[in-house]
């Protein structure tokens, strides 16, 4: 059968038109919908008592920490519930929250002849949950990401390939790498929380699992009021009140990562 180009184009046009008419479209759509259960579709939701914020922030009152002994209970509370191992070799150390001397925590702003009390006070350091996190940009697999709902910089350990770009990118040294299987080095396992496996990076998660059930982070709970936790973008929140009424500094602010951990000095 011989057909002119004109006839074929006409046929194409009519077919396209026919496929786009609502009755035909609906028929196709209906076909795809069948096969699903008659009962409702399953769905996921947040827990009713989950705490909500635009950007979680922490205010640490360094004046209330006199010696390393004041910091230990916080570190222990965190490391116990998150199954953080105690590694025998210093190079393999895993830490979520720890204390550092002032000149290490704030290397860009040590003063000459500064107040001795402040100079020797332990500074609690942890992941800053930056508003502009460099680790997130460095991660090639999106394993670490800034959660849009609450601003927590979180790790998805399932996706971490252990490249450690994030560790190189983080200016605060807040990330640790599991050079070995951490399980044998966990002193007391919290069975409700997973451990990590060899070859993944880990860090503080701002207790995302506790916030989801309406609890404050473990370090805040253990701090006895020395730490305050709340929404940075709620002008009425406790953290905003503290930032307003006290002189606060942040770590390496000049780098522009916008840390969400504030220090009253």
């Amino acid at each position: 059968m011989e057909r002119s180009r004109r006839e074929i184009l006409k046929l194409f046009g009519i077919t396209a038109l026919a496929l786009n008419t609502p009755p035909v479209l609906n028929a196709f759509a209906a076909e795809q919908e069948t096969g699903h259960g008659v009962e409702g579709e399953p769905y996921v939701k947040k827990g009713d008592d989950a705490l909500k914020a635009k950007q979680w922030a922490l205010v640490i009152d360094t004046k209330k920490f006199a010696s390393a002994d004041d910091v230990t209970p916080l570190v222990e509370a965190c490391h116990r519930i998150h199954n953080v191992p105690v590694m025998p070799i210093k190079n393999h150390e895993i830490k979520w929250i720890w204390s550092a001397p002032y000149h290490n925590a704030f290397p860009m702003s040590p003063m000459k002849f500064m107040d001795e009390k402040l100079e020797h006070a332990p500074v609690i350091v942890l992941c800053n949950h930056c508003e502009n996190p460099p680790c997130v940009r460095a991660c090639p697999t999106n394993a670490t990401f800034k959660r849009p709902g609450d601003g927590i910089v979180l790790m998805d350990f399932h996706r971490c390939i252990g490249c450690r770009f994030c560790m190189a990118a983080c200016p605060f040294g807040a990330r640790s790498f599991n050079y070995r299987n951490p399980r044998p080095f966990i002193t007391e396992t919290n069975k409700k929380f997973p451990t990590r496996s060899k070859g993944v990076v880990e860090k503080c998660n701002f207790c995302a699992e506790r916030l989801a059930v309406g609890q404050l982070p473990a370090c805040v709970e253990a701090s006895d009021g020395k730490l305050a936790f709340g929404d940075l973008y709620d002008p009425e929140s406790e953290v905003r009140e503290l930032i307003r009424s006290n002189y606060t500094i942040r770590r390496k602010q000049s780098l522009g990562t916008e840390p969400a951990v504030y220090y009253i000095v």
Partner: protein
Amino acid sequence: MGNKKLVYLGITIFLVIVALPFWYNHGKAVPPPEVELTARAKEAKECVRSKDYMARDHMKVLDLWRHSVVRNAERIYVNPQGKEFAMSLSNTCLDCHSNKAEFCDRCHNYASVRPYCWDCHIDNPKESN
């Protein structure tokens, strides 16, 4: 084509070797594994979804769970019947199915899949049975 015989011989040997595993295992199919339910799981009767669905698609359920918990902070799963579950492998699934060896492993070994869930997630969190 002076070496026709050799070529045919070669092809025959090749086919015999390729077919050997099929002949070797002929009629010796391993029976599908029987999974054992714990008393608690039996009592509950229905899992998060129907038994068929779970047997076939539990990995899809778990994939959805890990994604919504970690990425979207949504931790409650509401099944088609409207029942709510905390989305947690250790604290929900393995709390009921506390017999990993007789439940998870039997099928996984049979199907020769090696999921690495338990490298991190703790099985039998409450140490029942």
